[in-house]
């Protein structure tokens, strides 16, 4: 199958849920997104933003109300089977066969993806090794911890090679070592030419992995672009951290008067986000430093989390349109 330049194309996508009682709920409201082939695409948004609905539509689990969606050049409503032949999915739920062993989970999954039986064992060896599951191979999944179950679920995807992989919060519940192994595996899959569609709440993960990031809220696209583009949406934001020898109430009161984007205090340390064109902090700090010793002072450029919080701090409105690259 020859693949188009865009792995996913979404135009004016609308999804309205019509519950038996109560008013209809618009989960996706005219969404437009393109995902280029071979990229790691991160979909971010708070709970209820429409991420899971979009993922369900893209993975052929649910039809859209209106709009057009093509995945790998195929129409989602008419060519669902052909799309499913070329993708694999890790859903948010712990989708594992509880009564089967880890090994049987992997081999059953491989059979569903038409891997020849003589290749299954070798693949299972590699995958269990990579995800630290070797010692649990013969154990039933029902007896494993939540983190291990999630590992089994994610590991299944790496039993097969498909041009498109959907991952819904893949590292939830994993320890840092296995989280790292998962991120490395995702990166390798992308380097091998696969397209990864990732949703996550862990913004550092998105920042580290994704070539393109989309932020959605209330079914609308708030921002779309690569990391620098997204960060440029709050152009002059800086993260600062100041530790005083003693953080007095007077100093705190002085600082609180400043126009911080975010502000938090831990003992004698203040962590905050400011606009860099606002020099009032530095002037205030210079004054405060004369009365109380500053032990540590650090300035960093804003993180994706700062941008995320800033973008979602208010509801989308006509005067707050979609931002970033709309491709």
């Amino acid at each position, binding site marked *: 199958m020859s693949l188009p330049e865009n792995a996913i194309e979404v135009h004016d996508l609308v999804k309205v*849920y*019509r519950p038996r009682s109560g008013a209809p709920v618009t989960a996706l409201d005219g969404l437009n997104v393109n995902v280029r082939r071979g990229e790691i695409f991160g979909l971010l948004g708070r709970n209820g933003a429409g991420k899971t609905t979009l993922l*369900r539509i893209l*993975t*052929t*689990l*649910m*039809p859209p109300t209106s709009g057009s969606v093509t995945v790998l050049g195929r129409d989602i409503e008419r060519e669902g*089977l052909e799309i*499913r*032949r070329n*993708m*694999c*999915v890790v*859903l948010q*739920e*712990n*989708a*594992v*066969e*509880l*009564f*089967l062993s880890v090994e*049987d989970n992997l081999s*059953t999954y491989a*059979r*569903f*993806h*038409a891997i020849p039986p003589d290749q299954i064992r070798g693949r299972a060896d590699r995958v269990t090794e990579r995800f630290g599951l070797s010692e649990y191979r013969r154990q*039933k999944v029902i007896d494993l911890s939540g983190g291990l179950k999630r590992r089994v679920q994610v590991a299944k995807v790496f039993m097969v090679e498909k041009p498109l992989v*959907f991952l819904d919060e893949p590292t939830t519940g994993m320890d840092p070592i296995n989280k790292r192994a998962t991120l490395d595996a995702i990166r390798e899959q992308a380097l091998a030419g696969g397209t990864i569609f990732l949703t996550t709440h862990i913004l550092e993960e998105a920042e580290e992995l994704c070539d393109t990031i989309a932020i959605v809220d209330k079914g609308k696209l708030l921002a779309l672009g690569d990391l620098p583009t997204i960060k440029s949406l709050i152009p002059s934001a800086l993260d600062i951290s100041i530790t005083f020898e003693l953080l007095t109430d007077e100093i705190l009161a002085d600082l609180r008067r400043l126009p911080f984007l975010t502000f938090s205090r831990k003992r004698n340390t203040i962590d905050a986000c400011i606009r860099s064109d606002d020099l009032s902090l530095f002037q205030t700090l210079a004054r405060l430093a004369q009365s109380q010793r500053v032990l540590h002072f650090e300035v960093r450029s804003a993180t994706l989390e700062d941008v995320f919080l800033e973008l979602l701090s208010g509801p989308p409105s006509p005067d707050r349109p979609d931002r970033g690259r709309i491709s």
Partner: protein
Amino acid sequence: MTMILAVMYREYRIRTTSMTWLFYDLFMPLTYLLLFGIGLDRAFDTGLSVGETTVRYNAFFLSGVITMACFGIAINTSYGFFVDRDNGIFFEFLTYPMTRSEFLIGKILFNCVLSLLQALLTVLLGVLLLSIPLLWNRLPLVLAGVVAGTAGWFFFLTTFALRIRRNDMFNTFINVAYFVLMFASSLFYPTEQLPAWLRAVAAFNPMTWQTDFLRFATIGSGNGGVVFAEAAAFLIFLLISFGAAVRTLHRGILR
């Protein structure tokens, strides 16, 4: 075909993880026949009058037990949708490279194999232990009735298992359906002796159609023309149920 085999392989792996489950599936109808059947066989010591003939209750009840077993396997399989949904794997299945029909057919084929084993065990041990006068030349008809019965009940119950969200509601539905379908049918007793209203209900009950067909195939009781009309009605019921199950899987499951 690969996908259907993959679904069957999965069903097989899961079923063989529990010997209790397997034992229940294979021997439940025989136990029913031995405990319940023997009791009533003694109670109706002079036999049961069916149409113009008289038969022992055990022989009469054999087809009822096989119908019940088909329904039981269909309940277990359709209930599996709740287990899969609770495990979270149900929706993952629907993203696998197979059609919704292949998914259902794979499930039902495995369970038909199980039903056939169960029916053969029941028939053989029924003949050996209870001296049921089986018409061996009609055994293929018995097996056909078992396959069609298991499939029909599975597709019928699947539609409800996919539409009903709550486990407890599905259990209630199953209990009510089982109760009404079993007792308003020819499963336990000949319908000729029932009051007119109950006889009318039984005449439109797919459980009667399957039981009558199996009774004709096991002990030769019933009018051939009526029985084959009932078999045709059951096949229509099967096809409608299959269409409804596939349709339910196609749309609305995540609504």
